[in-house]
């Protein structure tokens, strides 16, 4: 009783669906729902988190992300241009920077700028500055590579056309090449913002005052103060999604738009 290819494919699909259903059922039966409800889905007790988790936490997460992105974007553009420079020293510096900051955990950068730099240089940076610098310097490394690819994706003829009209090098870059590069990298750049949004949580390693709390810190605080188990973290996670999912959709929209037209 040989089966045709189509029959085999259908049977295979049924088997896979069956395995999935059995696994889910086993998971549901094995779960201690009382404990789960008390510790993860205990939404009755999270009232005190509001409205501060939105007014302070979400607001601070957005501010930290924005500041980090501004530093990252400016630094990234500078590094990308250095990496494409004809002057070897610039290329080496940019390459060294990018490899270093992409290669170490962002958490270490936060610790370095939060504790190391104040100790070493006797300066006391505010939390905002630490976030801006730490997040920005890590982001710059990633954004630099994205922008470099974007700048290289602009056809060489664009620069030649601009130069042949008498525009100096930097003017051609600023007016003609960089605007086109940004259009090309808009989707990956949006993804960088998503990564930054999540990385802004690393600020928890620093001592924060209540008004400096961001989403994750609110979640962690809630765990110890509300007696609702991990539920506050679930709430904090939900707020991250409120930010990141629209950004994801935005990136996809940019992508389909740039696929349609080069404008």
């Amino acid at each position, binding site marked *: 009783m040989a089966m045709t290819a189509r029959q085999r494919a259908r049977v295979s699909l049924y088997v896979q669906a069956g395995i999935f259903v059995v696994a889910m059922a086993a998971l549901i039966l094995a779960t201690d729902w009382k404990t789960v409800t008390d510790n993860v889905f205990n939404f009755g007790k999270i009232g005190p988190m509001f409205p501060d988790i939105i007014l302070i936490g979400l607001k601070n997460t957005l501010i930290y992300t924005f500041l980090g992105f501004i530093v990252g974007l400016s630094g990234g553009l500078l590094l990308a241009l250095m990496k494409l420079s004809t002057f070897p020293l610039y290329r080496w510096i940019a390459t060294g920077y990018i490899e270093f900051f992409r290669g170490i955990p962002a958490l270490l950068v936060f610790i370095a700028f939060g504790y190391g730099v104040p100790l070493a240089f006797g300066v006391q940076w505010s939390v905002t500055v630490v976030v801006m610098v730490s997040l920005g310097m890590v982001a710059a490394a990633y954004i630099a590579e994205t922008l470099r690819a974007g700048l290289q994706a602009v056809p060489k003829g664009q620069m030649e056309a601009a130069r*042949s009209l008498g525009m100096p090098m930097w003017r051609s870059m600023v007016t003609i090449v960089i605007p086109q590069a940004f259009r090309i990298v808009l989707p990956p750049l949006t993804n960088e913002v998503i990564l930054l949004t999540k990385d802004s949580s690393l600020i928890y390693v620093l001592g924060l005052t209540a008004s400096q709390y961001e989403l994750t810190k609110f979640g962690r605080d809630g765990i110890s103060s509300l007696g609702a188990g991990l539920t506050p973290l679930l709430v904090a996670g939900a707020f991250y999604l409120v930010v990141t999912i629209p950004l994801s959709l935005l990136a996809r929209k940019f992508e389909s738009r740039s696929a349609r037209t080069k404008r």
Partner: protein
Amino acid sequence: MNDVVIPSRNHTGPVHAAGVSIKDLRKSYGSNEVLKGISLDVAPGAVVCLIGPSGSGKSTLLRCVNLLEQPNEGTIHVGGFEATDLDVDIDKMRRKVGMVFQQFNLFPHLNALRNCTIAQTKVLKRSQAAADKVAQANLDRVGLGHLADRFPDQLSGGQQQRVAIARALSMDPELMLFDEPTSALDPETVGDVLSVMRNLAKEGMTMLVVTHEMGFAREVADRVVFMDGGVVVEEGVAERVISNPTQGRTKEFLKRVLDPTHIEISE
């Protein structure tokens, strides 16, 4: 055939046209020498067509004139500038030299009008209003005044190339370089571009044109220069070179270009 001054025709209309004088120009990429000592003079207001097989160095020669390629040896004078002088103000010189590319190279993020105004405002420091006026006049000149607000991707290849010509003209150049301006076009749009170029020649613009359009060269050019293997093989009055070439390589090339379906049977 070196140092032949190519004479200008009698032109009407006041145009500041610049001449070009190229002497013993050499250009290599690594060990590959693509220009092996080229000398060529173009009088103000003259139209010269560069023809020859691909890889003959004609595009490289053209790109040396506005320094998109840096020559290794020799001199180029353009208008009042010595392009090969290391201290030359490249950007100032390029303002006088318009360039039209095979691939148009319009700026895709700007509409046709802005393509024609961006360098005027940023380089010549014209006001936006003044630049708009010049741009609109030049778009009208190439027959596309009504499409000034279109973006490049909304224009056909031939229309894009005419906008590219208007863009170059908006800088009031004294010399126009054309690098195979019709090679990337659909056959039905070639004529529009050539007729714009023909008008430009009539107005007395100095033009250096790399082209495979023999009909255009014969009709519009004062002189035709045939290049092969990085040297000028033959040059002279357009009609004479195309109809009656004296050099074997020129004859062979023209036969292939003018009658591409002709099959030579050799053993």
